[in-house]
């Protein structure tokens, strides 16, 4: 039984080795921030700033646990019981889902913090390869034959929903002007005609998409590292970060003529913070995002801060001016947008199914 003895000794050695990692070194308070993909770098820095700052102010040591993934998946985890104290997700719809499915936070959560609980914003831009070999300038170029477009799956990725809605909004603006869009009622034939055109535009666009990743970060890696596709539709913050983090891949940003104002939202998860008595810390954590330091950090990590004056001048230069429309202007609210576009019978599923039908022919 010599073999067993050796194995046992080894096991014991490993046990004692890793035991120390599990000894209690927990600080006074622990909160968990469940966030989406592209905020990894921002919250790493923000958490460091917050723990230091909060400790100085209250004398209480705090540790922020961090979890990242596709926005929809993360919301699903929270619904299934992941103990988030705060959620900082890609779109309000995902936080709405947590609220409506579990009641862990009230339905009016979005009114509890300024700017509809979106402390920072971004927009949707294109990332292309150095020199822009396919000469992509605007949304219209994405449906040209022979252009491969990379965008994640709108059914799982928050970023991809924004991508999709930005493209839809662009297509609407080709048929109607902004004034008409806000004036026309939903069943107006003019608007319906424009929406049919938008549907056709999106169908053509998704015919150019060879692969749907589940999240924004996965799509960036597919495009940048694995070299698949001619253009990546992505968050502006994700594109700027990719330029900085992957200089060897030689990428360029193309800002389209018009895009959507993306508003990633944040909220407390009341049920958890009340049970764990962490409301004060969690509240301070979210309010800190609106502080001058929080805004400056967001800008450093390529998110457009609500208060641009807090960003350093060189950070401010990263954000070019462009025509931005909001979700509310073109789509009403997330509930409506979801019903119409991303529900099982929604436009996305229909146009994506058509894509396969066309391929078979």
């Amino acid at each position, binding site marked *: 039984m010599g073999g067993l003895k050796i194995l046992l000794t080894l096991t014991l050695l490993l046990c004692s080795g*890793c035991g120390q990692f599990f000894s209690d070194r927990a600080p006074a308070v622990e909160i968990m921030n469940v966030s989406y993909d592209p905020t990894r770098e921002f919250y790493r820095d923000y958490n460091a700033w917050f723990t230091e700052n909060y400790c100085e102010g209250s004398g209480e040591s705090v540790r922020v646990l961090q979890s990242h993934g596709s926005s929809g998946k993360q919301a699903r985890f929270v619904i299934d019981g992941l103990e988030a104290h705060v959620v900082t997700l890609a779109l309000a719809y995902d936080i709405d889902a947590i609220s409506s499915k579990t009641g862990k936070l009230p339905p009016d959560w979005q009114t509890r913090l300024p700017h509809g609980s979106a402390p920072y914003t971004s927009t949707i831009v294109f990332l292309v390869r150095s020199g822009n070999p396919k000469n992509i300038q605007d949304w219209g170029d994405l449906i040209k034959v022979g252009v491969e477009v990379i965008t994640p799956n709108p059914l799982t990725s928050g970023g991809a929903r924004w991508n999709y809605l930005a493209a839809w909004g662009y297509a609407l603006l080709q048929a109607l002007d902004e004034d008409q869009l806000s004036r026309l009622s939903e069943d107006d034939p003019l608007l319906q005609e424009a929406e049919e055109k938008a549907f056709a535009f999106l169908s053509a666009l998704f015919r150019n998409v060879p692969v749907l990743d589940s999240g924004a970060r996965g799509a960036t890696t597919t495009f940048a590292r694995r070299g698949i596709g001619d253009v990546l539709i992505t968050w502006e913050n994700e594109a700027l970060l990719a330029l900085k983090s992957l200089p060897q891949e030689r990428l360029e940003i193309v800002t389209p003529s018009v895009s959507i104002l993306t508003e990633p939202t944040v909220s407390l998860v009341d049920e958890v913070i009340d049970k764990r008595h962490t409301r004060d810390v969690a509240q301070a954590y979210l309010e800190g995002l609106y502080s001058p330091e929080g805004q400056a950090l967001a800008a450093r990590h390529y998110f457009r801060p609500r208060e641009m004056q807090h960003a350093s001048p060189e950070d401010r230069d990263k954000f070019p001016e462009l025509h931005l429309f909001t979700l509310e202007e073109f789509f009403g609210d997330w509930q409506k947008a979801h019903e119409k576009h991303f529900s099982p019978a929604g436009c996305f599923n229909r146009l994506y199914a058509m894509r396969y039908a066309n391929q078979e022919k």
Partner: protein
Amino acid sequence: MFSSDYISRLSRLIFQVITLAFVSLFLILPLCVIISESFGGGLKAYLNAISHPDTLLALGLTFLAVIVTLPLNVLFGIVAAWALTKYEFRGKSLLSALIDLPFAVPPVIAGFILILYLGKHGVFGSLLEKFDLNIIFSTPAIVIATLFVTIPFVARELIPLMQEQGTEEEQAAVSLGASTLQTFFYVTLPNIKWALLYGIILTVARSMGEFGAVSVLSGHIRGKTVTLPLHIEILYNEYNFTAAFAVSSLLMLLALLTLIAKEFFFWKLNSGGSVHQVQEDTVPGDPAS
């Protein structure tokens, strides 16, 4: 015309070349890529990545999963194999098939099954709620997921062997007055120990590398519910490619160590420790004396 000797040598050469090409293309080359990529940032970056607190915590959690899973699976494997080979009962073949279920179920699905089973809305949801217990998205979830996917490994190694050996020896021991435990430790265990060790090694290897089921159940909380494979994914997603490959090489090293352990045991098995000899050594010194 070619002689038959020439043809057989030629075919041997062809087979060897094909095997070698396949092994180098699909095994050795990827390993080399991992190693070269992991040292892409220099030795210092490599050591930094390996010794980063998050990496150590992930390593600790991976070991914890292995350490908890292993004894439970050994116990279960022996019990199940014993039940399936030494006794006759109704539903035996069904039980035998059920043990293989974790082989058949994709790990991701296994993860979702466990969420439905142990989650807040699951079968035990209200009970967990009452005692304020959190199983999924915490360390126990990682362990349970690992346990689930590795259940068949020990049992599957033991069953064929024990079937082949039959029950004569045990019956002899019992008729000589040995108790059940004595029969097990002096007769059965010596007969199955090499297969058991092999099962253990397979379990260890699989527990360390499990990704799918663990990924679904972990919640990806940094420094808390992240095992080595999940940590590699996170590093990769954070554009930290060098560190991702460095940690991969660490996981690979652990896998190689298990392989070496396996080879070592098989070498012992072949050099003097064959099943029959072991049997002859141990049986005389048993309960009767």
